[in-house]
């Protein structure tokens, strides 16, 4: 049963990833990415990482993708006329680079399962909120607080970058 769910989710993930890359309409690309995030969250559930599956849906498929869609609709972009027009050499090069990267990664994966111990009984409980919270708020408390500062800095920085400076614009005209 697990195998069938995994195959279904893997096909969904790869298909929506390809759909995102090959779609001319930016909004459709973003919606494909939402589908991709949700199916990756399903795979996290298969891996017994319940907390991160939830966070994946809340943060990625929820917050980040809403931000993306908001910006796309704010910019009011037209469809790209064609993905493959000129500079064909670039696409061939990109494709071959992708194939080389994929084969390198897959080659390095050979025998990686033998390096791991047998599936430990802790796997069932490793991904629960209790287990993560126990470690997060003791051993990694400092890093957690730094994350809060990072997010605050990101919000302030984004406001600084994106704000519309009326006075500057007037001076340049």
């Amino acid at each position, binding site marked *: 049963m*697990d195998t069938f769910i*995994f195959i279904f989710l*893997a096909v969904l*993930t*790869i298909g929506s*990833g390809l759909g*995102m*890359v090959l779609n001319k309409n*930016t909004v459709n*690309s*973003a919606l494909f990415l939402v589908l991709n*995030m949700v199916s990756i969250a399903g*795979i*996290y559930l298969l*891996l*017994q*990482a319940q907390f*991160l599956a939830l*966070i994946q849906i809340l*943060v*990625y498929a929820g*917050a*980040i993708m809403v*931000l*993306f869609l908001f910006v796309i609709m704010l*910019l009011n*972009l037209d469809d*790209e006329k064609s*993905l493959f027009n000129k500079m064909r050499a*670039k696409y061939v090069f*990109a494709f071959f*680079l*992708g194939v080389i990267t*994929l084969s390198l990664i*897959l080659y390095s*994966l050979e025998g*990686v*399962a033998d390096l*791991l111990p047998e*599936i*430990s009984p*802790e*796997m069932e409980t*490793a*991904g629960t909120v209790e287990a*993560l919270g*126990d*470690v*997060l708020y003791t051993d*990694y408390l400092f*890093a957690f607080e730094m*994350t809060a500062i*990072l*997010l605050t*800095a*990101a919000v302030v*920085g*984004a406001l600084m*970058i*994106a704000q519309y400076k009326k006075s500057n614009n007037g001076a340049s005209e």
Partner: protein
Amino acid sequence: MIEIDWYLALSAVLFTIGLIGVLIRRNAIVIFMCVELMLNAVNLTLISFSSYHGDVTGQILVFFSLAVAAAEAVIGLAIILAIFRNNISVDITKVNLLRW
């Protein structure tokens, strides 16, 4: 139980799709989404190793990488917005102010 190899192979394929997307697309926002896809692929690797080891540390790392990804998305979209406002384009081939 599924072998860990399958999760890692899926992650490698997703990473490659993201990489090719970054290389062939010209729309800055789509390139940005491809970067998010690559980040997700790496997160998947971390979680599968963490799960198969029964060790929660890998999932903590994914938690922090999610926070960094959120910060990165906010800043990146702000930069794209600022470029669009000044240059009226999100086509990265037209953003060549720093080209010599």
